[in-house]
């Protein structure tokens, strides 16, 4: 009897190991047919009720729950901001949200559930101990067997948890079928080339893959897969005709090595996916490794994609970008000891220093680009003014597409807080998926206040409306 029991136990263990060993992450599906390649792209997110006249783009940075709560506070303030002379709010004018890591939770929830964010999101995400729940999942013996599989890892457990408890197992189909803006861009990083990887139809076309059937929770998990704490998330790169993978813009940009290295580099990153035999898989990690504030996606839209097209078509009269950056900078005491910092400190600094410096340069670079447009408009109007004053039959200079747009970029960060003690408090908050209710409440409040008091935001609202 004892022998049979032992055999049964061994049998169950073997069966579990076998089943666990077979565990596999949910794979992205190939594109069913070429006609679907335009799915989940910005241009299909039109909203007849709203024009492009006021174009608002938001970016939500990484930073765990700290970032998610700060972004939530900004959304609340946008909801309180009425457009002069209308009963509409500025939140209703938001056209695109680009998100990274912790900010992806807020952005994805809003894109999926709209105003339900303001009633449910605190309970469903912000005030939960997500990392504690994830640890419990990892500690569950059933999951040990699944985690023993080479095709299933901690990131897949995290994605299951997010899908089950936050995003109701929704896919991009659910966002797409609403057909309403904002268009959500969740950003991750391709470990192969270090390039930004966005969860959009355009990006998935390079993989010959269908984004509509892909779970939103997995995109959020990839976006927030912080190195070492979580494992990379994998996708399949399917063979697909080259003329469908690369756009005409890509092909022209690949000739621009000497003319425009940035444009060439962007196209070269896309060309990586052409050879699915040589590069059959894509492994993604935290979007913060490539761009921790999500502004690069807006940069691409402005420079060469849908925003550029709308400006050239003269559809945009007011253009506002709000970059919500939850970067926390602890003063630290590295420079107060003679002995060099420990290996873990050096490892952490190696991850974060370049991220923070790059974020700073990204914001400043974007500001320069906006300033360049403002200058172009001024040169045009000044020159026309001089001609009108000094020439009898004044010559009309060919008009600049988009005319005299009002442009603004608003940079939200704790650095802008005037009170040193308050600044220190927020800079001291950890990057984790577990904050206290009080910490969350303070972050939400400060997010709204930072936007309402931001001089660039106030100036834009005064000039543009």
């Amino acid at each position, binding site marked *: 009897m004892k022998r049979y029991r032992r055999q049964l136990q061994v049998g169950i263990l073997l069966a579990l190991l076998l089943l666990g060993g077979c565990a596999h992450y949910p794979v992205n599906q190939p594109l069913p047919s070429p006609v679907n390649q335009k799915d989940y792209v910005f241009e299909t997110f039109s909203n007849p009720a709203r024009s492009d006249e006021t174009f608002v783009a938001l970016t939500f940075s990484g930073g765990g729950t700290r970032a998610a709560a700060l972004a939530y506070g900004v959304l609340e303030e946008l909801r309180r901001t009425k457009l002069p002379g209308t009963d509409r709010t500025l939140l209703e004018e938001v056209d695109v949200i680009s998100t990274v890591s912790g900010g992806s939770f807020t952005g994805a929830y809003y894109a999926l559930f709209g105003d339900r964010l303001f009633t449910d999101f605190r309970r469903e995400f912000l005030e939960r101990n997500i990392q504690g729940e994830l640890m419990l999942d990892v500690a569950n013996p059933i999951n040990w067997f699944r985690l023993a599989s080479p095709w299933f890892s901690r990131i897949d457990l995290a994605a299951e948890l997010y899908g089950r408890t936050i995003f109701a197992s929704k896919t991009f189909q659910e966002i797409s079928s609403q057909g309403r803006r904002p268009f959500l861009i969740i950003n991750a990083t391709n470990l192969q080339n270090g390039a930004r990887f966005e969860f959009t139809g355009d990006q998935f076309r390079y993989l010959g893959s269908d984004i509509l059937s892909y779970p939103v929770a997995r995109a959020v998990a990839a976006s927030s897969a912080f190195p070492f704490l979580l494992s990379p998330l994998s996708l399949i790169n399917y063979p697909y005709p080259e003329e469908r993978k690369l*756009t*005409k*813009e890509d092909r*022209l*940009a690949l*000739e*621009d090595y000497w*003319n*425009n290295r940035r*444009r*060439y580099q962007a196209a070269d990153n896309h060309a990586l996916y052409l050879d699915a035999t040589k590069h059959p898989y894509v492994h993604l990690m935290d979007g913060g490794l490539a761009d921790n504030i999500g502004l690069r996606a807006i940069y691409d839209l402005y*420079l*060469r994609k849908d925003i*550029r*097209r709308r*400006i*050239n*078509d*003269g559809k945009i009269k007011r253009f506002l970008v709000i970059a919500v950056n939850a970067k926390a900078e602890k003063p630290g005491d590295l420079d107060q000891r003679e002995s060099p910092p420990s290996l873990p400190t050096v490892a952490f600094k190696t991850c974060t220093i370049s991220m923070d410096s790059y974020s700073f340069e990204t914001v400043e670079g974007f500001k320069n*680009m906006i300033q*360049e*447009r403002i200058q*172009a408009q001024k*040169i*045009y109007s000044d*020159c026309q003014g001089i001609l009108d004053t000094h020439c009898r039959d004044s010559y009309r*200079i*060919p*008009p*600049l*597409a*988009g005319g005299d747009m009002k442009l603004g970029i608003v940079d939200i960060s704790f650095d802008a807080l005037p009170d040193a003690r308050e600044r220190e408090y927020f800079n001291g908050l950890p990057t984790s998926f577990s904050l206290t209710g009080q910490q969350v409440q303070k972050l939400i409040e400060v997010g709204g206040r930072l936007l309402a008091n931001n001089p660039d935001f106030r100036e834009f609202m005064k000039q543009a409306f």
Partner: protein
Amino acid sequence: MEYIIVKFGGEDRGVVIDGISQGRTEVVLEVERGSHEISLEEPPSDFKPLDEKVVVRDTTPLSPQEVSFEKI
């Protein structure tokens, strides 16, 4: 940012840049520095050449690169 102006004998017509419709003729359009393929919206296909490849660089809003199409 760089600037182009597409001319079609003074006629108003939609412009196509790198395969995407955007902007009109006789208006200064913004493009990224580098190689671009410029054409006009069809129908009608009453212009030549069918498209023109240009490298746009070192322009200003007051001196955009000119791309011309002839009516046929």
